[in-house]
């Protein structure tokens, strides 16, 4: 296929990766300027992992992500305005300002949360897959988790449950070589996280996480299996994060080895752009996408800045379905 029309699926992959990259670059800049409270865990370097996985899903498929939450929703197709507004703590944010950077989760795109408790998405994804199965829907549920998260019992229990019940779940371990400062091999026993699959009697697949097409192909196969009722797959995307564990940790936490430069050279966006150009896509078309996304990001930021902060009563909403009353002694000073 050499069409470069608007709806060319190849361009959509490029677009989403670019969108993540530019969204985050802007977020980092305004975080440094003090406009975003709290921490910021960036996804730069890992875009092919998120986009390759999500592009293999339908809009109505489910997804659960992590504290490193900027990439997944954009990969799944979310709009930027509510995401940026969330980073700024505004009421127009996707979580009404209550989640923040670790929780950019757009339920309208099938997300069921980006959870900042490492590993905790595993059971949720298994449960969503169970729900789809019980409802007779052919939806699947995809769980992103980190290499570090693979050590958590929750991931083990989620995978065992999904496997023993043949649930339509896909477990995608985004192995970016570190959990915070700790290299994967110092925390995760065994040569590959994907090797754990054998113990559950499910396929375990290792894929180049810098290659969006490779990730997509692996996840598509897993999705097909899942929809066909053949149960879950564990996929490990070998990838890398370019930034430190999080922005604003005071100092660099992650030790960088000589392989750092190789990973930077294997930038997933550069790789994919080159592939597109080689396949006949015009550089100008890609440049046009880049600048359209720059506009989108600027628009999102403007929207976020123009939005209001939540009113205090919002702090008491969504604990339960019915809003809680504000205690008088608290409201007096809010």
């Amino acid at each position, binding site marked *: 296929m050499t069409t470069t029309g608007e709806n060319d699926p190849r361009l959509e992959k490029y677009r989403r990766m670019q969108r993540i990259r530019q969204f985050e670059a802007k977020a980092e800049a305004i975080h440094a300027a003090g406009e975003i409270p709290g921490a910021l865990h960036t996804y730069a370097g890992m875009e092919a992992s998120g986009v390759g996985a999500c592009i293999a899903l339908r809009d109505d498929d*489910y997804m*659960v992500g992590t504290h490193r939450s900027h990439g997944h929703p954009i990969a799944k197709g979310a709009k930027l305005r509510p995401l940026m507004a969330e980073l700024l703590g505004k009421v127009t*944010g*996707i*979580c*009404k*300002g*209550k*989640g923040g950077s670790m*929780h950019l*989760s*757009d*339920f*309208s795109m099938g997300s*069921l*949360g980006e*959870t900042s*408790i490492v590993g*905790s998405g*595993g*059971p*949720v*994804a*298994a*449960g*969503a*897959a*169970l*729900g*789809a199965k*019980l*409802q007779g829907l052919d*939806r699947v*549920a995809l769980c992103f988790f980190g290499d570090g998260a693979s050590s958590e*019992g*929750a991931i*083990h*229990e*989620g995978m*065992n*449950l999904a496997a*023993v*019940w043949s649930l339509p779940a896909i477990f995608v371990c985004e192995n970016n070589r570190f959990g915070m400062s700790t290299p994967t091999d110092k925390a995760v026993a065994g040569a590959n996280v994907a090797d754990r699959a054998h113990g559950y009697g499910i396929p375990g697949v290792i894929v180049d996480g810098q290659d969006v097409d490779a990730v997509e192909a692996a996840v598509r196969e897993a999705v097909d299996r899942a929809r066909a009722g053949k149960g879950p797959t564990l996929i490990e995307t070998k990838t890398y994060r370019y930034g430190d564990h999080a922005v604003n940790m005071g100092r660099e936490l992650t030790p960088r080895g000589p392989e750092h430069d190789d990973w930077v050279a294997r930038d997933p966006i550069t790789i994919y752009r080159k592939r597109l150009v080689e396949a006949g896509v015009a550089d100008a078309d890609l440049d046009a996408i880049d600048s359209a996304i720059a506009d989108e990001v600027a628009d999102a930021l403007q929207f976020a800045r123009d939005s209001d902060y939540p009113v205090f009563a919002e702090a008491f*909403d*969504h*604990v*339960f*379905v019915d809003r809680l009353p504000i205690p008088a002694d608290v409201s007096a000073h809010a």
Partner: protein
Amino acid sequence: MARVTYLEAIHQAQKEEMARDKSVFIMGEDVRCNVFGTTTGFVDQFGEERVRDTPISENGFIGAAGGAAMVGMRPIVDATISSFLFPAMDQICSIIAKSRYIYGGQARLPLVIRSCLFYGNSNAAQHSDRPYSMFMNMPGLKIIAPSNASDMKGLLKAAIRSDDPVLSFEDSTCWMAKGEVSDDVDHVIPLGKGDIKREGSDLTIIGVAGGVNVALNAAKKLAEEGISAEVIDPRTLVPLDRELILQSVRKTGRAICVDPAHMTCSAASEIAATIVEHAFDALRGPVVRVTTPDTHLPFSPHIEKPLYPSVERIVDAARRIIGAERAVPA
């Protein structure tokens, strides 16, 4: 109306709600074989898809209930014994209690986590926990702790129909007790409404879970001594019907909180704190807690049994606060 046990009330509530609503299903360890008798005939009636035996992985399947609820199901999890909630604490506290809030209302988690308070029968410390107060400190979880068959059925039905996550703590000391239970399919007791189990004027005894029945027995004993005790059963611990408790204490001026859990940071402590904060002017004596002391539960029945709240301890406490007051110079 029929006289049925507390266990049978659980069975009925689950059965009726599963029949009524296809999105309700039940899962847990060995639910198909129906260990305690709350799922009799379920596999035959509802099929294996809706009656699921889980692997022994409480964090996994309780978290899965959260995921299933988020996509529109209404899971009932039978976690059997309350002590087995500890391995699932993370999914309960980090996911189930918080997801609706963190995501600004995008998530809805209609699910019920049932477990029994399995104390008093030589099961030793690892099986005898009564941990509801731990969950009371975590916003986002509704909690029921019924003390008789009718409440059990009505509250469990309310829990299953609720759009919020609900923990159901089922006191095994009540399991075999029979009571009149409505067979109306809409016998639903609203969450957050306490109940006056016995009216009285001298003293309020607030009971928690099985503590209500001990309180009722104590009230009978006190009546023989001419002391009229009112017995309040909050029935749901979250939301807690503070108003009903306060009304009673404003009337009687005296309160005893009976709770089979360990004393420190117990539901009894919360109730006592509520009373002294909001009904101080009415108080005519100390608010006394009759609880299990802060020790573990031993296996040997000879030393286990005396640890729980008893009629004698409540009666003593009542005499003490009434006597103390009389003894105080005017």
